[in-house]
């Protein structure tokens, strides 16, 4: 398992390095159209071929990795921070605040995410840059995704609140904020970390779903979701190189899961 974990760390590290500076690794810009040679199979100049309008698939995959891999963790971080604050508050305060936050979480969980995202996407200003568009998409994912981890955090805080060490701290006159920061936070942090690792692949896949519907990251900016649209239908049987983004996505998510399974998140 240690070997697998090391491989996962190595893979994620390599992908992160490529994603952080795609200009170094990509032979072409993601939006350059080689119109004389559209939809070509892999060759020395274009290792994954060119897409329907003649763009270098490998370069687009490298740039798309940056978009998906940097923004998905950012969105996951946002939702986990919100979940930590709201879930912690609900668990700690109880009563009306608890009921209100739980009701809000239930409401968010019952909302049809995809339709909500479509509605929000349709209401957004049109003339925004592709970079702003992708940021907004992931921001929405982050804002909408707080409810599930918040419920987990709330349950953990409620359990911790009745534990002996918290009782002892209170008995010794520990103030609420100190209790929160010094006693509860270290115990809740692993749970939030687990939620973070769970959320990252979910957000990547959600963006992929939006991309498959043509509503994800705006052209010409590539993302894994947008690149996976080439797999629609069964064209990959004749052109297996189209599977490259799917394989990368599977490897990255698999690596996240490997890391996750080795953490001890028990309270």
């Amino acid at each position, binding site marked *: 398992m240690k070997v697998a974990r090391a491989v996962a760390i190595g893979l994620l590290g390599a992908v992160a390095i490529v994603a952080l500076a795609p200009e170094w690794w990509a032979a072409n810009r993601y939006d350059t159209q080689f119109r004389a040679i559209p939809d070509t199979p892999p060759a020395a100049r274009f290792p994954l071929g060119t897409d329907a309008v003649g763009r270098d698939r490998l370069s687009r995959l490298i740039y798309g990795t940056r978009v998906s891999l940097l923004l998905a963790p950012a969105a996951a971080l946002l939702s986990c921070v919100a979940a930590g604050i709201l879930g912690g508050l609900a668990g700690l305060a109880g009563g009306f605040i608890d009921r209100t936050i739980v009701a809000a979480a239930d409401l968010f969980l019952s909302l049809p995410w995809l339709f909500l995202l479509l509605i929000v996407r349709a209401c957004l200003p049109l*003339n925004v840059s592709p970079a702003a568009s992708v940021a907004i998409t992931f921001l929405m994912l982050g804002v909408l995704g707080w409810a599930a981890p918040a419920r987990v955090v709330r349950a953990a805080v409620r359990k911790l609140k009745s534990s002996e060490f918290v009782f002892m701290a209170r008995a010794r006159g520990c103030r609420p904020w100190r209790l929160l920061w010094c006693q509860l936070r270290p115990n809740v942090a692993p749970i939030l970390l687990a939620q973070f690792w769970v959320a990252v692949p979910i957000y990547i896949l959600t963006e992929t779903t939006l991309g498959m519907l043509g509503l994800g990251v705006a052209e010409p900016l590539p993302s894994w979701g947008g690149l996976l649209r080439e797999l629609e*239908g069964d064209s990959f049987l004749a052109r297996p190189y189209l599977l490259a983004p799917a394989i990368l996505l599977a490897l990255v998510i698999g690596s996240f899961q490997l890391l996750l399974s080795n953490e001890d998140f028990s309270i």
Partner: protein
Amino acid sequence: MKLPFALRPAPLLLLAVTTAAGAELRLTLHDEPKTLDPWLAADESAEAVQYLTEGVLIRVNRLTQRPEPELAESWSISKDATRIVFQLRRGVKFPDGSAFTADDVVQSFERLLDPALHSPIADTFKTDRGSVKLRAEGTNTVVAQFPTPTASMEKLFDQVAIVSGKALHRPYPGLGAFLIAERRPGVSIQLKRNPAYWKRDSDGKALPRVDSVRFDIEQNRDLELLRFRRGEVDLIDKLTPELFDRLASEAPGTAIDAGPTLDSEFLWFNQARRAPLPEATKAWFQSAGFRRAVSLAINRADLCRIVYRGHATPASGPVSPANKLWLKEGLNPEPFDPAAAMKFLTADGFRLEAGVLRDQRGNPVDFSIITNAGSKTREHMAVMVQQDLAKLGMKVAIVTLDFPSLIERITRTLNYEACLLGLVNVDADPSEWMNVLLSSASNHPWNPAQKSPETSWEAEIDRLMLAQAGSADHHTRKKSFDRVQEILREQMPVIYLIHPNALAAVSPRVTGVKVTAFFPHTFWDAEHLTVGARPPGIH
């Protein structure tokens, strides 16, 4: 009238000879119909459903382009081409058992022409001297009086659904081959055979031959083809060029290219003065020089070659080169000429600074192009246009929206900058463009539903279109419509890009399909089609 283009012979499909018991014809719609009201249908999905469920007085045969009797058994047109008298078919009944009479026709038109309805179809019955007036003479004769001579007037009646005048509430019972049985929003529309349908085949057997039609709403074209291959879908009315080539290589007999259509794909800028856009942006879009520059900067040949894989023709205007009768002679597609484009922009006060195009006030030229989500072809066209315009220093964002949101923006809120869409043309006659080119039309793309024309050239187009609609003389009409095409080239309110070919997929299970270049390409005579048994396991 000479046919505008050569129609290819339909393939002979012999595998399925008889219709299986309880046979169902399975088709797809690419979007949820915006409305099922037959007089408000403006999108292709709604028109497809309407085509199968509504009865019309005269139907234009999609194969021969000749008008054929439907609910009107015969008709006669006055010598001055202002009046048409319909003799209605006797014995026709609505699904509720009530008899079809002349009053139903008159009341249908009264509802259609009600200004409160805002029907896009009603625009085709308008001339500069008013609208058509209908009156019943007895139970089986209807007289339609046009205020001015109108050429090919009988073809106009192909698109008007005749419904029961006695019915008080929508949906009014229709007289088509099928009835709407069930609508599952976003999933499917199920049609069942109309038991009261009047038409019989040559052997005297009741039509339609299939018991039901199912329209599955399938935005994803790849999945649509996948389902076709699995036997879940029988006909695909419009394949993308990529999928067509794929199907043609795998199963050549099922992929049919019926040649150039009258349809067009085009781009336009929002030129409505009431649009909620910054004044500087409106000024760009209202400048003919700016629009002309954009047109010159787009490489149409590349769009045909790359996006359509050769299954399209560069557009010179709204009239397809296939429509030789009405295309203005000498009007060639705009050449790809970025240098000429830059000259137009410079003349308009634009300047290129460090790769960024700026207007006279120094505002960088950036705008968004909206198009419907799910259409790879349009997305690829938009991406190529984006790169072409980037060479002029224009920064273009591409936004794909779900179809209802897009329609909402381009027809109601007008909160958009540019739009890339297509137009389906059923008839080659210029009257077909009335509901698009008249400034008062709700489908007038660049500035819909104007109370009065906001520009002098739009006023001239209005005058010319109404004049051609009000004349029976071909030469006069041609002259008017030629001038309309000239104005559209000079002012470029719509940047016509390409005319696609009709690319269809026909399952060997379906017998009798004759693919045409006119919408609907595959199921225009659905009542005559037969469907054989499906593969095992497909329900």
